[in-house]
């Protein structure tokens, strides 16, 4: 699903260069749930941004879902993000003045999807995260855990191949974290590949594989369980 080979990313200012990723090589299989750990500044978020096509890489080759995405135009990258990638952020990143329904619906607008189809997908996604009764609420009226579930509904409503989660439980208490982790495991079990940055070692051990990043390179890899074969290859039409 994700095949990175010698990926490098450098941030430059007038006076300093920061090597966020150094010759990083990684393969993630379809249906795999990978946890990424590392200290602050180790390059975890940059890795996630590069994987999610939010940042361009400086060198190396990146193949996503069988397509070389190393040198795509901005519009092509936007298209892939919209159709194949779902994002979950630590701070939930919901749009404060949109209600739950419209927050979840937002990415579908950029796919020029008809209203009826948008409605079907949004209600299905909210039902799946247990928030079908909260559609009219605005984010400020929800708890942190509920907000993160809205963000998950937004990530899955487009039926993505990969979900990139950047510390999705970082702002939540233990109970809420457990609920979110359970939800992610269910989504993964249904076939969606997940890459999750986390500082929580306990959560990191409940996935297929844990990568530890140090100074922009993968330092250690721990395998906890193997990926179960999936019944069929998902297509965009699904």
């Amino acid at each position, binding site marked *: 699903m994700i095949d990175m080979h010698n990926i490098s990313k450098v941030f430059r200012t007038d006076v300093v260069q920061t090597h966020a990723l150094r010759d990083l090589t990684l393969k993630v299989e379809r249906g795999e749930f990978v946890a990424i750990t590392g200290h602050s500044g180790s390059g975890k*978020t940059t890795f996630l*941004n590069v994987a*999610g096509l*939010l*940042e361009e890489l400086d060198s190396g080759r990146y193949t996503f879902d069988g397509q070389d995405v190393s040198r795509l135009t*901005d*519009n092509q990258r*936007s*298209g892939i*993000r*919209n*159709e194949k990638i779902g*994002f979950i*952020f630590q*701070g939930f*990143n919901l*749009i*404060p*003045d*949109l209600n739950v329904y419209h927050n979840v619906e*937002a*990415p579908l*607008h*950029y*796919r*020029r999807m008809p209203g009826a189809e948008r409605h079907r997908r949004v209600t299905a996604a909210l039902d799946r995260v247990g928030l079908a009764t909260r559609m009219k609420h605005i984010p400020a009226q929800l708890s942190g855990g509920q907000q993160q579930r809205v963000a998950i509904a*937004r990530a899955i409503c*487009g039926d993505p191949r990969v979900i990139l989660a950047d510390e999705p439980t970082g702002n939540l208490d233990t109970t809420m974290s457990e609920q979110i982790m359970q939800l992610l495991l269910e989504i993964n079990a249904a076939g969606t590949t997940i890459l999750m940055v986390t500082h929580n070692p306990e959560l990191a051990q409940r996935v297929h594989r844990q990568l530890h990043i140090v100074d922009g390179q993968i330092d250690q890899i721990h395998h906890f369980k193997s990926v179960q074969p999936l019944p069929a290859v998902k297509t965009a039409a699904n």
Partner: protein
Amino acid sequence: MLIHDLRLAVRSLRRNPVLSALMIGAIAVGIAASMISITLYHARAGHPIPWKDDKLFAVTLDTRDDEPPQSFERHPEYPPFQLTYQDARALYTSDIPQHSVMMFRSGQVLTPDNHGVKPFGVSTRVTTADFFTMFDVPFLYGSGWPRAQDDAPGAVVVLSRYMNEKIFGGANSVGRLVVLDGRSYRVVGVIASWMPRPKYYDLNGWEGWEIPEEVFIPFGWGRTLKMSPHGNTNCVRRSAKMDGPDSLYTQECVWLQYWVEVRNRAERDRYQAFVDNYTNEQRLHGRFPRKNNNRVVNVPTWLAMWDVVGEDSRMQLVLGFVFLAVCVLNTIGLMLAKFLAAAPISGLRRALGARRSDITRQHLIEVIVVGLAGGAVGMALTLGGLGGLKVLMFSGRLAHSHNPDRLVLIQSFFHMDIPVMLAAVGLSLLAGILAGLYPAYRIGHLAPATFLKTQ
């Protein structure tokens, strides 16, 4: 998608009402300033008789001494804008033009038949017969008088529509009698609604911003009744002396308006040559000490020469647009601040799959909404401003006028017609887009990851 963007724009504006109100207010004030300038300019810059540009010409001659006793300060380079009686009379003999008119404005007292109505003053145009034909005066009833009644003046009168309504209740009064200064005149014609703006045929008074006269009588009555002109009388030679009404007809003083109508350009050139020959010939008799400076000019040139649409009007127009530009610049700053404050949301939308063009378009829709809202508020401010100006500038003038045509004239200065309203809508759209183009482009081209952590 457009409706979606429109909804987002409205939500975005409601998210920060103070900043939104400031932006809309800035554009509204700029629009109001420029629209008030445009409205006033548009009213003054109108062309009263465009279909006669190549036919109708004002005639002026430079009769002045080298150092005339009365200066013509505003435009000393032009000849005085009126003629002496003897020059007008000499030019009137020419058969080159199809029509000629010499005339002046005066005033009389009209005594109505109806004993219940007190005598009242009226404005009178004392003119030769061609006036009505040359200036395309529309008639409700009857017509003007024949040329034969100009010099040995016939006791005939043409009434304005308002005057006919006032003394005859609007009925066909042709053949009825009107008493002016104690003398009876037979009505031969009643003019339909007619208000050339500006009153180009006589720029005396309020720089041509006057209503046409209420009664019209043959030119010969001026001398017979020793009528005095209600306009400027300028003596242009040191030797001129004004002692009584007869002096107008003997002294080198200018007080008559003079116009000709020709059939074509060649005839106009022939007429110019005729006028120049006349002044050359007069110079041999000691008149016209200056070099020839005779003007035979059409209406647009005439209005431009005498600053009917003055430099101040043009300056006011420029200042209006400069003010709008300043408001737009301020709005650019406010928009940039607003858009950058909401940049994390744009970054999030980019992460969710929005293209740069989606973000730019979404913000452009927002600036168009701001522009249109600013335009709507600006239009209201414009109407309020024009109403206020009308009261400030003309309340005294209206209070002392019995003629409703004057109200119509003054209202026409402050009237926003359809083209001006369309200009306001276009201008507000343009202002909004100009103010938002750079901020919208800038926000659309931010790297999507930049603000995600800070959202």
